[in-house]
């Protein structure tokens, strides 16, 4: 499969919402070790709202609006830093993108590169800061190495790279959030935001694999 049509893209985003909502407990536990413990509630709440907004907004004219609806729902329900950051994961790649009704891997890769740039500009985080960037950036790099790949190959690479990125966050001290005050004591624990990035890419992979 090289292209997703509008309905398939919508179904994939719905699958992402479901996967994150189901991971609420896991994310809460991961975040409780070194953070505020509210990441699971926040992400699940944002994705519940996104899912409802997608269902309510259908039919959509283009794929751009699907991503915009998802991102804005997250920003406007979650609040806090993670609302902006994860909302930007869906919104950040839309800048300058002509309205599209078919999504190919190359376009999606470019969108995720745009999202990564927007997130880094807004949150000022770099690789190694123990944030979601540690999972998102390797996923984008992995996708960029696979131009013209089919969706399954592309998303498997993205999910694998994100998973490795999550593992790597265990090695870092945190530069942001509550965990920054723990210094070396944060080492050994994975970052909750990076974990969410993996869950999102993995849900996309599972979706394209089974369709």
């Amino acid at each position: 499969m090289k292209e997703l049509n509008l309905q398939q893209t919508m179904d994939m985003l719905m699958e992402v919402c479901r996967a994150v909502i189901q991971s609420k407990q896991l994310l809460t536990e991961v975040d409780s070790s070194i953070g505020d413990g509210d990441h699971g509630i926040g992400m699940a709440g944002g994705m519940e709202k996104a899912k409802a907004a997608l269902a309510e907004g259908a039919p959509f004219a283009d794929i751009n609006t699907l991503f915009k609806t998802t991102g804005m729902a997250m920003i406007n329900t979650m609040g806090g830093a993670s609302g902006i950051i994860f909302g930007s994961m869906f919104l950040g790649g839309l800048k300058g993108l002509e309205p599209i009704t078919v999504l190919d891997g190359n376009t999606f890769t470019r969108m995720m590169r745009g999202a990564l740039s927007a997130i880094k500009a807004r949150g000022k985080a770099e690789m190694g800061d123990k944030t979601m960037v540690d999972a998102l950036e390797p996923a984008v790099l992995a996708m960029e190495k696979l131009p013209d790949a089919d969706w399954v190959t592309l998303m498997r690479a993205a999910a694998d790279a994100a998973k490795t990125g999550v593992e790597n966050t265990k090695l870092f001290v945190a530069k942001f959030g509550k965990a920054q005050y723990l210094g070396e004591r944060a080492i050994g624990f994975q970052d909750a935001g990076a974990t969410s990035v993996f869950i999102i890419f993995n849900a996309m992979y599972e979706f394209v694999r089974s369709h």
Partner: protein
Amino acid sequence: MKKIINDGQNVVAEMLSGYLTAYSRYYERVGDSNAFTYKNRRKHKVSIVIGGGSGHEPLFIGFVGKGLADAAACGNIFASPNPELIMNTAQAVDEGCGVLFLYGCYAGDNMNFDMAEELCALEDIQTAHVRIWDDCASAPKERKETRRGIAGDVYVIKVAAAAADAGYPLDEVVRIAEKARDNINTIGLATSPGSIPGLDKPTFELGADEIEFGMGLHGEPGIERTKMQPAAQLVNRMYDELKKEMLLQAGQQIAVLVNGLGSTTLLELNIVYHELAKHLTADGLDVHDVEINQFCTCQEMGGFSITILKLDEELKRFYDTACYSPYYAREALA
């Protein structure tokens, strides 16, 4: 944790419903959102919008009113309000003279208010912001712009709102708010954790006989954990930190805020000031005003903070004006 709530998901909306219904003579909700405005606000002036995560009451809801902020945008528990809510709140009180956002310096608040300002620019609303970073235990002086905002918010809001009411233009209100912010420091001490309504887990763990100096409102680790001590020793340690940080010298005129973090009683807070006053007198400080109450809390967190504002003639003029909200009222000081 026993909490007088219904569904943990609805605590902010239900709290605001109670507050705004009870005090409907003063306040009006912005649509059905978690934001509200002060009905009798002075017109044709710079508008002051405050906001941040909920759960710290009376901050922020209790600092909207006469001589105080014009509106507040309330986020979820301990989470910043979102950009759209902030923008709608600003729009509701904009008089065409500019809107000043005052909020505590936290990553989430900084990002959401920044994005709100971008949205306001699209609506031709002129905006500015002053981030409050009074907690001197949260980062060294060289990185003060990464420090957290805590009870010092009270003074910045009070002074900036008075300057706006006096008819100063936006850039001048910003200058005065920044001057207040740069002359305020706070240090806190935690004796027990708070909790997020709806969650069983406390925001941090602290031994039954332990206290932590400098611990943040959300359980951010502080500068030293020790065994519990008598009030005199606790205050001694905290005053030393403030004195060093603020270079306090004899003759300096100051205002002092003793703030309870949630479950610490007024009896205890007044004992804190009983001790603090001895130091202030011994060092020859000119104490212009003192307030002892709960201003900025973290649910049932135990402990207190001490805030000092160094006054000059200009700040004093704005500090001294009368203000009123159901949770924060003062007569004009002579």
